[in-house]
């Protein structure tokens, strides 16, 4: 402290520290900044309005508006059309343009509908032919296998029209409807008039459901694949669009056997498979 002035000030500092703040200054600090300080004081039950319920009500309102807006987005095109047709708020010229567009769209839609109807008819006729052919082929395979394996005689009896158990028949009913299903098969695998090589097997009628019984390992693999495809298809769609006819699995126990039937349907492929497992 070589500085003499500083030394002098430090020696006499107590003299200059003599100013005093106002006596109620502490109370001012405590009152004004009470909220910031978080001092433990006895809590008073304030009669303030409880905003908790207001927040809940507001959040519910926001949720409702959000759901409503989602619905609007989904039905957006319909609502736009209804707005055009119902409300005549548009100027006359714009209204005429809109009407012309609507007419043009109607004509295009009409033509498209007609074309679709023709196509559907064609597909249906092809399907019927294909189905008959496939049915015959499938039955021929079954009959061959039944002959080769004497253990399956019981099941062969069930497959005939006369002895088919009504419950199994229900399982085997195809869920495939004829509309909008395309198949790559242009020709039936076996023509209706074709006679199976093993002539001693009872001829099954073409109206019978498709039931293919191969060895269990192959069949279960095919069924597993179908289930996998069906599940993947379901996952790829919105949950609201899930339908039971995409993938339908049913099981029945009858005559010491478990019958599992799988119906799988996609936009391009549809088939029905069933498998029987002896109950041990």
């Amino acid at each position, binding site marked *: 402290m070589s500085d003499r002035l500083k030394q002098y000030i*430090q020696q*006499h500092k107590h003299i200059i520290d003599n100013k005093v703040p106002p006596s109620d200054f502490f109370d001012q600090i405590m009152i004004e900044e009470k909220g910031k300080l978080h001092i433990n004081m006895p809590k008073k039950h304030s009669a303030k309005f409880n905003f908790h319920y207001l927040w809940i009500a507001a959040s519910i309102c926001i949720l409702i508006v959000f759901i409503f807006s989602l619905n609007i987005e989904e039905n957006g095109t319909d609502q736009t059309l209804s707005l055009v047709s119902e409300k005549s708020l548009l100027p006359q010229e714009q209204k005429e343009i809109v009407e012309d567009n609507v007419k043009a769209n109607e004509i295009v839609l009409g033509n498209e509908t007609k074309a679709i109807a023709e196509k559907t008819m064609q597909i249906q006729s092809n399907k019927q032919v294909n189905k008959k052919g496939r049915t015959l082929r499938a039955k021929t395979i079954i009959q061959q296998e039944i002959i080769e394996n004497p253990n399956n005689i019981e099941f062969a009896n069930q497959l005939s029209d006369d002895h088919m158990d009504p419950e199994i028949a229900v399982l085997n009913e195809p869920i495939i409807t004829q509309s909008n299903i395309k198949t790559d098969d242009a020709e039936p695998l076996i023509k209706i008039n074709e006679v199976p090589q093993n002539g001693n097997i009872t001829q099954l009628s073409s109206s019978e459901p498709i039931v293919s019984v191969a060895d269990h390992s192959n069949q279960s693999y095919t069924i597993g694949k179908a289930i996998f495809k069906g599940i993947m298809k379901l996952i790829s769609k919105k949950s609201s669009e899930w339908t039971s006819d995409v993938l339908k699995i049913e099981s029945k126990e009858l005559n010491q056997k478990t019958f599992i039937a799988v119906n799988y349907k996609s936009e391009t492929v549809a088939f029905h498979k069933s498998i029987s497992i002896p109950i041990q």
Partner: protein
Amino acid sequence: MQTLVDRIKQADQKAYRELYDMFNIPMYNICLRMMNQPEDALDVLQETFIKVFQNIQQLNNGQLLPAWIKKICINTALSELDKKQKLQFDDLNDESVLYSLNSEDGVIDEFEHESNMAEIMNAIELLPERYRIVFTLYAIEDYSHEEIAQMLGIVASTSRSQYLRGKQKLLEIIKKNKQHVRSIKTIYTTA
């Protein structure tokens, strides 16, 4: 001191009052010297105690409480001054101010009575703000030039040169005042 800090940490309202009673006068005087206006000093004092009460949980060593409060007070005052007008501390040449500091001894020899301390304080109030801040922090609050440089965001040499300039100015003011008093005394004695 540690007990007091612990009680404040436990939100004992009486301890808040005790701490205020212990430090309000020295802190208020620091605020006055820094701000030069009683209203501004009270604002800074209030802000200081609020900061102290809010942040005392961070203070582990109770023995450091006086220095800690003083530092908060000075930093608050500096930030208030900075808000009002940007403080500028020009780097000055020390050589130019050293010539007149030899006359310091003569001035200090005359400070024999306590009332002379009041003269110094009055002279400090008349200093330009940048000199007053550095002079107050160095000569009265006893901070080193390095500490002052850290507080003000300047280099230590600038703090030193600002202090020397301020000191020179202060002595000039004191001399002028003394001459003025002497001339008045002469007038009265001759009359």
